[in-house]
């Protein structure tokens, strides 16, 4: 159980010595509770307290890192629902390839080179899952000539694996997959090559049993495959796994691997896996028209929900504006944007709505914090090159920041600065009466 700030405070020296960098012990305790600071910052904490605090802080799902030239992490999650805190480690998207594929190098190279941009972020695939239907060793050699991304090796053949893994010295690969009948040699290999080991069983009891046996053989890094064949089954298993892990059932406290590549509708299965608790997602082939939406979905689901809800700064066209339409300015706090956009949209009056980057704050808050001032507004108007879109050059400021009109006139010579109403609900009336 996570301890509250006050509970942690009671374990601290309560001297308010400030040496940790916080003004009081309680302030430090609350940072600890929020996991934003390390206990070691306190020089005076007792050993007894250290022990108690460490116990409450152990992550319920083991962090697994697959690593080569790049790395991908899964695990360390702490909640069932993203709004409760956030989802931390975005599931890795892997492309499945076949060792026997004559075009292996070409296909891997194409997927490896793929890069797509979404709101300023570049996404690319996280690694490859190699199916050992042919010569695994030479396939791995080939793959390593074209990509440095982490690998999942899909075979149970210990000899093949041993030689393939020898080629991957210094990396952390994932072996797929140990089952109750054959886990021993695979566990030995995982230990020998410092690889992670996927563990597959068709019931949670069997999975838990297997992870304990494998752990007894000295392997710590494991990934779970619940062998669910349908959307319904995998949702059920993954939910149960996450729930049990969060209840500190250590034998199930590992990330989950999912294989939408085998599903009836790969896109749908992959989307569900991303939303519902998978740590590694294996796709059948390189298809940008599916990868791109999956990357975006993953980014969206793994966004920190504790940050204020924002909309993209930019120009929003409402009711097909023309160069004579007014320019309304507001901030990128979503509720602010929605209220303005909805009112204007509902009025049927055309307008250009300029949404400035105010770090997701409402008009008044942003203004108070210095994130919505004449300079920033002017920068947005210029940055979005509004002058090329409008002829009338009329800007309407929210009434709450009427004080900015003078400065804005100086910043934007040639523009007609109007002060609009304070509340969005009064915008349509204002636009009908005061403008034109």
């Amino acid at each position, binding site marked *: 159980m996570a301890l509250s700030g006050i509970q942690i405070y009671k374990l601290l020296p309560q001297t308010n010595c400030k040496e940790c960098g916080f003004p009081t012990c309680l302030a430090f305790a609350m940072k600890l509770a929020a996991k934003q600071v390390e206990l070691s910052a306190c020089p005076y904490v007792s050993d007894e307290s250290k022990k108690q605090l460490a116990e409450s802080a152990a992550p319920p799902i083991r962090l697994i890192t697959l690593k080569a030239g790049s790395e991908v992490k899964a695990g360390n999650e702490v909640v069932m*629902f*993203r*709004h409760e805190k956030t989802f931390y480690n975005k599931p890795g998207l892997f492309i499945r390839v076949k060792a026997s594929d004559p075009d292996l190098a070409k296909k891997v190279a194409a997927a490896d080179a*793929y*890069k*797509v*941009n979404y*709101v300023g972020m570049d996404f690319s695939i996280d690694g490859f899952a190699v199916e050992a239907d042919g010569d695994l060793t030479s396939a791995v050699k080939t793959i390593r000539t074209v990509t440095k991304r982490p690998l999942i090796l899909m075979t149970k053949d210990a000899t093949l694996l041993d030689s393939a893994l020898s080629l991957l010295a210094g990396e952390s690969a994932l072996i797929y997959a140990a089952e109750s009948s054959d886990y021993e040699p695979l566990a030995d290999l995982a230990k020998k090559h410092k690889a992670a080991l996927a563990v597959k069983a068709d019931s*949670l*009891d069997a999975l*838990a049993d297997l992870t304990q046996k494998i752990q007894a053989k000295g392997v710590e890094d494991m990934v779970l495959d619940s062998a*669910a064949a*349908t*959307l*319904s*089954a995998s*949702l*059920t*298993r993954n*939910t*149960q796994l996450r*729930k*049990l892990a969060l*209840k500190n*059932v250590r034998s*199930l406290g590992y990330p989950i691997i999912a294989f939408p590549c085998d599903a*009836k*509708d790969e*896109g*749908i299965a992959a*989307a*569900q896996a991303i*939303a*519902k608790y998978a740590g590694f997602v294996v796709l059948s082939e390189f*298809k*940008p*028209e*599916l*990868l*791109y*939406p*999956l990357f*975006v*979905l993953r980014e*969206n*689901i793994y*966004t920190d*929900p504790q940050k204020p*809800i924002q*909309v993209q700064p930019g120009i929003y066209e409402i009711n097909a504006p023309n160069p004579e339409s007014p320019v309304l300015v507001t901030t990128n706090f*979503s*509720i602010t944007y*929605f*209220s303005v956009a*909805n009112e204007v*949209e*509902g*009025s*049927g009056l055309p307008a250009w709505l300029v949404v400035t980057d105010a770090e997701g704050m409402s008009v008044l808050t942003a203004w108070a914090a210095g994130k919505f001032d004449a300079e920033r507004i002017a920068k947005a108007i210029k940055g979005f090159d509004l002058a090329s879109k409008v002829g009338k050059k009329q800007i309407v400021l929210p009434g709450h920041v009427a004080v900015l009109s003078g400065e804005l006139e100086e910043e934007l010579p040639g523009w007609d600065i109007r002060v609009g109403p304070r509340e969005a*609900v009064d915008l349509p009336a204002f636009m009908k009466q005061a403008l034109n």
Partner: protein
Amino acid sequence: MPIEIPKDKWTGSIRAVTIGGTSAEGGTRAKSVTVGGQTSMPYLHYEALTPNKPVIAIEIKSHKPDDWSPLLAEAWGEAMAEPAQWAKKAEEAGADIIVLALTLADSPEDAVRVVKSVLSGTGLPLIVWGPGQAEKDNELLVPVSEATKGEKIVLGICEDKNYRTIVATAMANGHLVQSRTPMDVNLSKQLSILISDMGMPKDRILMDPTTGALGYGIEYGYSVMERLRLAALQGDAMTQSPMIVTPGFEAWKTKEAKVGEGVPEGWGDWKARAINWETLTAIALIESGADVLVLRHPESVKRVKDAIEELTIPA
């Protein structure tokens, strides 16, 4: 030692809401559609079965839209010019419900006429949206509501500024309302409270938490829906309405779905991507508790329906 599967013991449940009036209720629908009734988080059959599957509504317009993606125009063809035809085609494509969106060009008489023609073109239950301007919505929806008593139509879209007139006419004529608030749990609850304070029976309200498309705020709607559903199961009466979402409208507004030219190469094949955009938006919302999904492309409809089948069969 066998693992004990933890189960949530919820005290609340989602209200079952029936859309569409059959002859027994004084309407003309071939059958009605019931959504809601859940007593667990979505599709966790080991806790509770899903009493009513989520349903698909297909959105059609009273006039052929000139701003829809060419991919949609291609899919629906000539039927788009004739709402009754369009509705029939939508029914064939697998719709459980038809959403008819009125436009600013409609007069009250036009609106009544087109609603009646759609009602005669299909036996499916109907959701009617006004054009989205408070005054015009009231002007069109009131006569539509009065002319269709007994059909148990869902009238939309009620927002906090304009809910009174729509709720009043829905109450008077036995219809339902779609209560929309901008992606916020509290605002959602507040509008539900205001609507039921007017005397509207709670089983005639669909909550619309506002949908964000993939890449355009889906995560906010997603979490708001999860939170609403959790609150409902915990017994909060004001969040227990089934949820209606509009992935079709939102997804087809995005550049990713709407256009095929002048976009980054990394986006891949246009049509496949566009349908993925709508389908994946819909799937994420199904995972978070959507009960009525308003879609646009027949292929998305097929994929989403298949997924619903797969999800609702107990594992």
